[in-house]
């Protein structure tokens, strides 16, 4: 896949911003900031949290299967972009999983407990917990390794569980915890701490922009009841990805279907997927609650991989299975409308080379792979694919929540993202389409740090550029358009 990084590059990747006195005080040598970890009796607390999780979940039977069948063939290493970059055996997915599996085997299986009693060895130590704290966050949780395991071990699931247990003893990246706190308990109720008035201002501003650019009245409907779709983008899109949102609004304007953004809750981000099932549960419940408040029929997720996966797969888990509101991703909606002929895209607008990056969270299990490609091919003259792609895609390098950890950027854009950068370089693309807020942030940083001149955009960004509106919509807008001078004076 890729060559091992040079010693210089590795040194750069592993540099830490953490102050030695904090590391000393927290007795935790990791590269991400941690708020308030358990320091005394860390191993014991870890075991208590592990036990509590096993008691209330089904992880136990999965771990039983894994400890019994893990054959240690190291085949997974060939697929892991992190391992390929470091060539450090500690980055072999099977080794990462074994960190937790060995704890399970020793402390939660009869054989392990007996062995422990007989030989008095193998008790979990603080050092081992610390090793897990480092190791589980070196992984981008892309789950590519799971495709290569002959005995079917999903190392992504083990890492997911490991992070969950660690979070219960206070070891989780501060960036994720702080955002989740604001989302669930803060005044603004979203991870970017955007107050509702600011949101409304932003959307109004975008509407004015769109009217000027497209001569069509494109709206972001707010708090409308009984809509077909209630929209939850990654909330950071309201600050960073205006073009994507304008694309979403433009599509709905063209189709005329009803959709709305709720001011009660409007954040698709769910960092629970990355570090805590408890948070995952609480966050998806907010999405469903807001959809019900607005009497919406479906949950529509914006361009965001993890937001889509957490809603699609965990709204049913935590909110009533079949009775939960259906979840669709905005690209699925766009594809349907395109097929029905309700969307027209100008094939002469995007003439540069375009390539598409599959976000792991929507492609690994084979959910959305061909639809965005069909959309892009329908109007981009020079579309090229990267290899491997689809279910086997290579992660942007910022997956599993690591992109939000700013202090590990050197790690992400060298070790995590090296393979992706090489892949993108080969395509010679001008536009790299990444329909995911996390991937976009990571890929922009990656392109910058790896010296690639590629514009990272959302799929709807390009759609917005190329969309053709019906003449009747333009006329309607002309009738209603306010005098620009007057609105300027008011401001």
């Amino acid at each position, binding site marked *: 896949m890729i060559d091992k990084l040079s010693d210089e590059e590795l040194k750069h990747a592993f540099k830490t911003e953490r102050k030695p006195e904090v590391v000393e005080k927290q007795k935790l040598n990791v590269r991400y900031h941690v708020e308030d970890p358990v320091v005394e009796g860390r191993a014991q607390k870890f075991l208590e949290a592990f036990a509590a999780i096993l008691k209330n979940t089904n*992880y136990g039977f999965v771990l039983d299967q894994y400890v019994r069948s893990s054959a240690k063939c190291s085949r997974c290493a060939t697929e892991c972009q992190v391992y390929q970059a470091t060539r450090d055996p500690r980055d072999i997915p099977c080794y990462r999983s074994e960190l937790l599996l060995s704890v399970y085997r020793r402390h939660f299986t009869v054989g392990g407990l007996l062995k422990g009693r007989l030989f008095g060895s193998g008790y979990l130590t603080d050092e081992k917990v610390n090793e897990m704290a480092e190791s589980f966050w070196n992984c981008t949780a892309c789950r590519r390794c799971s495709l290569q395991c002959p005995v079917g071990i999903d190392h992504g699931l083990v890492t997911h569980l490991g992070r969950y247990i660690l979070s219960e003893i206070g070891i989780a990246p501060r960036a994720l915890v702080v955002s989740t706190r604001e989302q669930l308990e803060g005044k603004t109720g979203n991870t970017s701490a955007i107050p509702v008035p600011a949101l409304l201002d932003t959307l109004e501003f975008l509407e004015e922009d769109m009217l000027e650019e497209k001569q069509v009245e494109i709206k972001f409907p707010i708090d409308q009841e009984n809509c077909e779709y209630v929209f939850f983008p990654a909330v950071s899109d309201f600050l960073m990805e205006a073009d994507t949102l304008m694309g979403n609004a433009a599509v709905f304007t063209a189709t005329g279907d009803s959709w709305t953004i709720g001011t009660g809750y409007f954040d698709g981000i769910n960092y629970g997927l990355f570090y805590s099932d408890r948070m995952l549960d609480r966050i998806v419940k907010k999405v469903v609650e807001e959809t019900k408040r607005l009497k919406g029929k479906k949950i529509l997720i914006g361009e965001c991989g993890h937001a889509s996966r957490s809603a699609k797969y965990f709204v*049913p888990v935590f*909110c009533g299975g079949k009775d939960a509101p259906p979840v669709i991703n905005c690209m699925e909606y766009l594809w349907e409308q395109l097929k029905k002929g309700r969307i027209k895209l100008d094939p002469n607008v995007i003439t540069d080379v375009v390539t598409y990056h599959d976000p792991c969270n929507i492609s690994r299990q084979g959910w959305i792979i061909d639809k965005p490609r069909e959309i892009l091919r329908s109007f981009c003259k020079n579309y090229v694919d990267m290899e491997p792609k689809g279910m086997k895609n290579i992660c942007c390098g910022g997956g599993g929540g690591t992109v939000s950890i700013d202090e590990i950027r050197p790690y992400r854009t060298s070790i995590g993202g090296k393979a992706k950068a090489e892949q993108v370089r080969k395509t010679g693309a001008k536009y790299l389409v990444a329909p995911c807020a996390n991937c976009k942030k990571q890929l922009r940083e990656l392109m910058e740090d790896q010296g690639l001149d590629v514009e990272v955009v959302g799929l709807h960004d390009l759609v917005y550029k190329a969309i053709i509106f019906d003449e009747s919509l333009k006329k309607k807008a002309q009738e209603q358009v306010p005098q620009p001078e007057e609105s300027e004076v008011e401001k």
Partner: protein
Amino acid sequence: MEGVLEFVGGPLFRLTFAIMILGLIRIFALAIWGSLQAYREAGDKVLPGKLIVRNTVGWLLPIFRLWKTRPIYSLVSFLFHIGLILVPIFLLAHIRLWRDSIGFGWPALSNNLADILTITTIVAAVALFIGRITSRNARFISRPQDYIWPLLLAIPFVTGYVCNNLRISATVYQWMMLFHMLSAELTFVMIPFTKVAHCVLVPLSQLVSNLGWKFPAKSGEGVAETLGKKEMPI
């Protein structure tokens, strides 16, 4: 010696074989039971059926997917498994023994094919062992059982081949047969308690991994309650 051979080939065989079969049944049943339990408790019962079946069949018959990464290792491992599964079950000499004791048999491999498979299995076992001790990565993740297994499995194949094909004295033959049976019986006893248990778990692994993501609806609240964190701020 004859008495020893009779004991090893009779009661000891029955005991160790029973341990293996019962042990594997236990593991398989536990995995099925765990899956049913997990399914019952899962908040979302929709599973990606096609994907699970495709991946299960794909890894049980990995003819199409092995070669893409590490082709040589994959080939060796594949041949190793083929011999391991086919020879003990379909060797004519083994089937005759079964027929004598349980009254019926099944079609056998030709002796030539059995010999070829036996030799490939022995060569593959040695190659896998060498691969494991010479690769830094493999050493790093290996447990004692990972080194022991390929060598242990080779012993019944080597001794069986010698007994079947080489001109040896009756005494040597008896010793070889003793080693053959004892080594096989040792593997029987170890199988359910070591990684070779994957022989019955692989058919369920894709299902288990997919079910693993289908959490119980109340799991989050349950964990909070058990840890006394229900009212605690984040």
